[in-house]
């Protein structure tokens, strides 16, 4: 790992939005996944256009490909988002994505799937948040604005998927692009810091079986939109009619 000083010197020589420039250059070399929105390459101080309601980010998870003992997605999420604190009581630990092992007690059939924030179109967590910290971005990503989260945990009560966690202790080793801290509630952000640069969420990229697909549900040319249109998919707790961003196959 480079010494902090080297990186500072490099940064100070670059344009102030150098990071975006790097991302732009990186973007040029990455094959654009269908449906991902082009981010403006900033040479001057031009901020990006921001999230658009024309886009609806979604995920398709084929659980038939999901291996039971594998938790690559969980580890990748923890690395990317800086979820690295040691917790005294594991029940107090944050989990943005986790693997659930399901077993049918009557038939004995078992399978496993990743469970994360479903990024509902009608999120109960957004309805109940007293300050509006729990919010849905224009492109469908549900986030917690930790600047105004008061840590009341009502969203945790309201979430049908147990997607939200409270940070129970002071943190010091956060990743700079993923601020998170004591007393605030948090959940999967679809790796918004990556998505905004045209990258895939860490879990999707890390899946060795290719079970997870991410893209723009509103773009008829995207792989995810085409598959959702052709193949049978299910929403967990679909009777709640929340129109989820995450769809499953094989459950």
């Amino acid at each position, binding site marked *: *790992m*480079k*010494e*902090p*000083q080297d*990186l*500072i010197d490099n*940064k*100070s020589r670059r344009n*102030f*939005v150098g*990071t*975006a420039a*790097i*991302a732009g250059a*990186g*973007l040029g070399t990455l094959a654009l996944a269908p449906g991902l929105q082009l*981010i*403006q390459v*900033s040479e001057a*101080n*031009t*901020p*990006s*256009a*921001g*999230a658009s309601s024309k886009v609806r980010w979604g995920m398709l998870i084929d659980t038939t490909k999901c291996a039971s003992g594998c938790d690559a997605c969980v580890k*990748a999420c923890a690395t*990317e988002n*800086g979820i690295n604190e040691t917790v005294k009581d594991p029940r107090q630990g944050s989990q943005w994505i986790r693997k659930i092992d399901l077993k049918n007690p009557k038939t004995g059939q078992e399978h496993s799937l990743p469970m994360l924030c479903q990024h509902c179109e009608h999120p109960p967590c957004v309805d109940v948040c007293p300050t509006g910290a729990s*919010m849905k*971005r*224009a*492109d469908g990503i549900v*986030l917690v*604005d*930790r*600047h105004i989260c008061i840590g009341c945990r009502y969203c945790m009560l309201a979430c049908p998927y147990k997607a939200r966690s409270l940070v129970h202790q*002071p*943190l010091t*080793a*956060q*990743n*700079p*692009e*993923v*601020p*998170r*801290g*004591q*007393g*605030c509630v948090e959940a999967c952000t679809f*790796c*918004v*810091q*990556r998505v*905004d*640069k045209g*990258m895939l969420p*860490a879990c999707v990229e890390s899946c060795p079986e290719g079970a997870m697909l991410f893209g723009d549900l509103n773009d008829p040319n995207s792989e995810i939109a085409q598959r959702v249109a052709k193949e049978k998919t299910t929403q967990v707790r679909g009777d709640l009619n929340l129109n989820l961003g995450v769809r499953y196959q094989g459950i």
Partner: protein
Amino acid sequence: MKRTLVGLAAILLLAPVCASAGASKPTLKIENPGQCIAPVAEMRVNHMEMLKHTRDRTLRQGIRGEKASLNECINCHASKVTGSVLGKDGFCQECHSYAAVKLDCWDCHQPKAGKLNVGQAEAAGVKP
């Protein structure tokens, strides 16, 4: 009664003076002079407003690459010794300790410069 009131008033008026008698003015160490996004006077007065409005535009609206980026501030202003904007000679800490304005940011934001997300690192072609 009058003497009590005078005495009380004296204590109240002198207290701040006595309390700050021991505090020394902050000595700011600018690690990268001449690179800030606005003149010093403007930054002193407006940096909180800049950060506050940027945070809403970035988080709630998804607008990236704004002029006032907290991470860029940290990368430039972090102490070359500690690598952080807090602690001894910490850029943010110096003035805020003196002015006794609590810094809420660092409960969530990473005050150390140069730490990269996996995603950032990949994009920059460096190891995280």
